[in-house]
């Protein structure tokens, strides 16, 4: 019996599809091997040689894996993670870790939410966040954790990591509750959590309390201003909705349409100063205990120095890049000399400088800061010089017309840089900046050379214990450290490639 579908060429027919369509692209295993492994004589030869080599390597690796004793890692987990941090105060590192996870969680949740809103506004496809997707993105870290838990055979760190991840996940979900408009508020909150983690760890001495006070003060300022703008200035006049201003961007909402009364400006500033100073003194009044960074070590120290190096180097680097682009010979010359000098010498020589020379440059009646503090000064200068070159690339990528248009609309030079050039330049260099972050992360291993107990030197410390001395256990500890470095750096570089694709840098 024939139906209409058999004769009608425009109706899909499975039987005809099977005959008429081109053959499927799927290859059988044999065909695939023939095409990809054995397509000519020298490729066949290469396949055989490489396969033999890999078989040998796999056998040797498995032999190493099952014959080695991972006791040295189990015993020294704390050394690898936090160095010589006082052992009866380890709760501080855990608490600080949880707070940090919370900070990351809230931050990434908020960023996810605003990226989502951004994508919806532009009609771009939103990013799926499925489990397989996350697994694919973070397989390196997960694989290293699984490897380490199954061979080091210790439960407590696993429980700790699982609970830290739970904290991360919960705060991420709560971060997503922040509306995209409240993004700044959410990020402030994440920053506060991060500083709190520092407070628990290091106490309120030095800069930590000051930074917390400053952050709370800035938060107060923005909240009071928002309140004033919404309920004092905006009342009676046309509300922003009526004017069709999108509410999520606070910057353009009011300044030119309404004048904030002077008393309100000063009142908000006064409130910010009072609250900020109150928090500062309050924190200093409490005895938090804790240990400053000179006592830190291990992976914790490595990550901390990297983060400080990048975040302190960024503003300096931006200034240097602007200085290098400047028309003023003195400023340009000074920037060029600094950048080229720092980039021309190895980091070790700078670290040796910080070790032996920097103490001589402090005023004679001042106590010389610790070795790590001096190393961090040098590392900040080092990363600033490299960041400056990256930012310079970004500055050069901003079309000249942007600056000219801004000049034509009468903006001042400072505003042009702040509102027009830098946002575009910095957006273009995000992937390169992640690359710099990875490279600094690897470079912090040089701290081991000047005798600081970082992730790499923890291995030497473990091997110097009487229990493990002279047994050649570096064959166990170095691969462990290498996998740790690799998992972090590899995941970050993959993520940066993802960001690069999303931003479409280099495509346009």
């Amino acid at each position, binding site marked *: 019996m024939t139906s209409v579908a058999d004769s009608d060429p425009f109706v899909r027919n499975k039987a005809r599809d099977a005959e008429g369509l081109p053959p499927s692209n799927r290859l059988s295993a044999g065909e695939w091997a023939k095409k990809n492994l054995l397509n000519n004589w020298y490729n066949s030869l290469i396949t055989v040689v490489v396969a033999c080599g890999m078989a040998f390597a796999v056998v040797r690796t498995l032999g190493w894996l099952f014959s080695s004793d991972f006791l040295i890692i189990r015993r020294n987990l704390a050394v690898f993670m936090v160095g010589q941090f006082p052992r009866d105060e380890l709760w501080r590192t855990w608490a600080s870790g949880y707070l940090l996870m919370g900070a990351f969680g809230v931050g990434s949740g908020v960023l996810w939410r605003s990226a989502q809103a951004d994508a919806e506004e532009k009609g771009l496809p939103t990013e799926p966040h499925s489990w397989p997707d996350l697994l694919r993105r973070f397989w390196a870290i997960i694989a290293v954790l699984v490897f380490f838990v199954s061979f080091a055979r210790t439960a407590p760190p696993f429980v700790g990591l699982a609970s830290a991840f739970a904290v991360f996940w919960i705060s991420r979900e709560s971060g997503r509750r922040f509306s995209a408009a409240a993004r700044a508020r959410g990020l402030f909150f994440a920053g506060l959590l991060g500083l709190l983690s520092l407070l628990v760890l290091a106490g309120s001495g030095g800069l930590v309390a000051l930074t917390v006070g400053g952050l709370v003060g800035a938060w107060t300022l923005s909240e009071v201003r928002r309140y004033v703008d919404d309920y004092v200035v905006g009342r009676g006049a046309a509300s922003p909705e009526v004017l069709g201003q999108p509410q999520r961007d606070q910057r353009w909402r009011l300044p030119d349409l309404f004048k904030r009364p002077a008393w309100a400006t000063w009142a908000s500033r006064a409130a910010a100063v009072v609250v900020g100073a109150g928090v500062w003194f309050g924190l200093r009044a409490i005895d938090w205990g804790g240990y400053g960074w000179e006592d830190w070590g291990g992976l914790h120290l490595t990550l901390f120095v990297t983060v400080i190096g990048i975040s302190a180097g960024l503003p300096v680097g931006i200034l240097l890049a602007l200085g290098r682009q400047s028309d003023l010979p003195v400023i340009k010359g000074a920037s060029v000399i600094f950048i080229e000098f720092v980039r021309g010498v190895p980091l070790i020589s700078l670290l*040796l*400088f910080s070790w032996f020379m920097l103490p001589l440059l402090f005023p*004679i009646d001042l106590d010389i800061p610790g070795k790590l503090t001096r190393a961090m000064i040098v590392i900040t200068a080092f990363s600033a010089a490299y960041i400056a070159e990256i930012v310079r690339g970004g500055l050069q990528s901003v079309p000249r017309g942007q600056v000219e248009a801004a000049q034509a609309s009468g903006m001042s030079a400072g505003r042009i840089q702040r509102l027009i050039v830098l946002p575009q330049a910095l957006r273009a260099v995000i992937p390169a900046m992640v690359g710099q972050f990875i490279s600094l992360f690897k470079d912090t291993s040089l701290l081991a050379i000047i005798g600081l107990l970082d992730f790499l030197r923890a291995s030497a410390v473990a091997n110097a214990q009487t229990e493990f001395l002279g047994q050649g256990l570096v064959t166990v500890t170095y691969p462990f450290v290498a996998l740790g470095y*690799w998992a972090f750096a590899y995941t970050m570089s993959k993520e940066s490639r993802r960001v690069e694709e999303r931003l479409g840098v280099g495509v346009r």
Partner: protein
Amino acid sequence: MLGRLLLLVIALVLAAAVFLVGRYAIDKATRRDTSDRPPPWRDLNVLSLAAQVVALGLIVTVGAWLWSNFRDRTDAIGLELTFDFLDQPSGISIADNPLSSDAGIRDALQQGVKNTFLIILLGIPLSVLFGTLIGIARLSTNWLLRKLATAYVEFFRNIPPLLVIVFLWGAVFLNFPIGASPTAEAAWRPLGGWFIFSNSRFAFPSIIGLDNFGLYQLLIAASVVASVGVWVWRTRVFNNTGVPHRRALWSLATLVVLGAAFFFALGGPFEFSKTTVEDRVWSGGFRMQMPYAAVMSALVIYTASHISEIVRGSILAVHRGQVEASHALALNGLQRYRFVVLPQAFRIAFPPLINQFLNYTKNSSLAVAIGFAELTSITNNLFGNSQPAPQLTLILMAVYLFFSLVLSAMGNLVNRRLQLKGA
């Protein structure tokens, strides 16, 4: 002195400001035409000058402050800021080097510079070679090779170079058979002992000149010239007649035949020297220190992973039409790479390669971690012997800066020759 200088600068700036503003006020008051001259606080010339004066003042002030701190501290510990210490005995002995610890610091530093140079000299060509091979392997049609190369690159790009060095040193090279025993019997000696691999040295055969060796070297040089001539002749034949040139074969054969003929004619002008170990004393042959081998191979492994990415990118950047055209001309895979793809890819790859060479040079300082006696390591030892830190730091940085500048200048020179004219 610092305060007085600062006061002087402030006074000068104030005077200039008063002058400019005063002139403007007088102009205004006397209703002179000021349309061609904006007020000083809006005059770009004035503003830029002011900014530079302030910047310069800031730099000079900070510099002078640091210098006075420095002088206070050095005076307090009685540190001489001269270079006389260079003639004192260094107090460090360098392995496999006749320099004793009585030799001057100057000699030790020179030895360090020489060793740094040796790491660079051998390592850079090796890493380019290795990196290029891996970059090509990443684009191979062979799935297994491609994946292996990718795994190599993704692994070594993402771990610190220092870790590669200490791992190769501590976990691989030190696990070689023991070579410091009196007879070094345990060491691995392939090919009848002409090569020795042990955990203290690698040894290779070397050449020792006998009678007529100078003459033989001259004759070999002449043979090289002759083989180049053969190369040119075969190329010309090929260009004129299309007969396969086989120039590599021809010129190599010329060199070998001539070399052998002269060797026998002069009655054996040289012999191979074998390394021997007696009572822990190594003699003869070419001996490579373990730390040197470790540092160099680790840096080559690390740098090659970066270079291979550059090579891969540049090969992909060669225009597709070029590859298709070479297919149309029926060039095989090797010819396609040799004559079409690689020459063009190399031109694209060269500028980022210079960067990698600079990185390699700077990374050579990591040898300090395993104590190979290159510049940083020797300087570090001298610090340990409480030699003056400021001068040594200055020398250390100046040498590396010099290396960097020379390398990048040479690179830029080559690059200018490489790039297409007018492109």
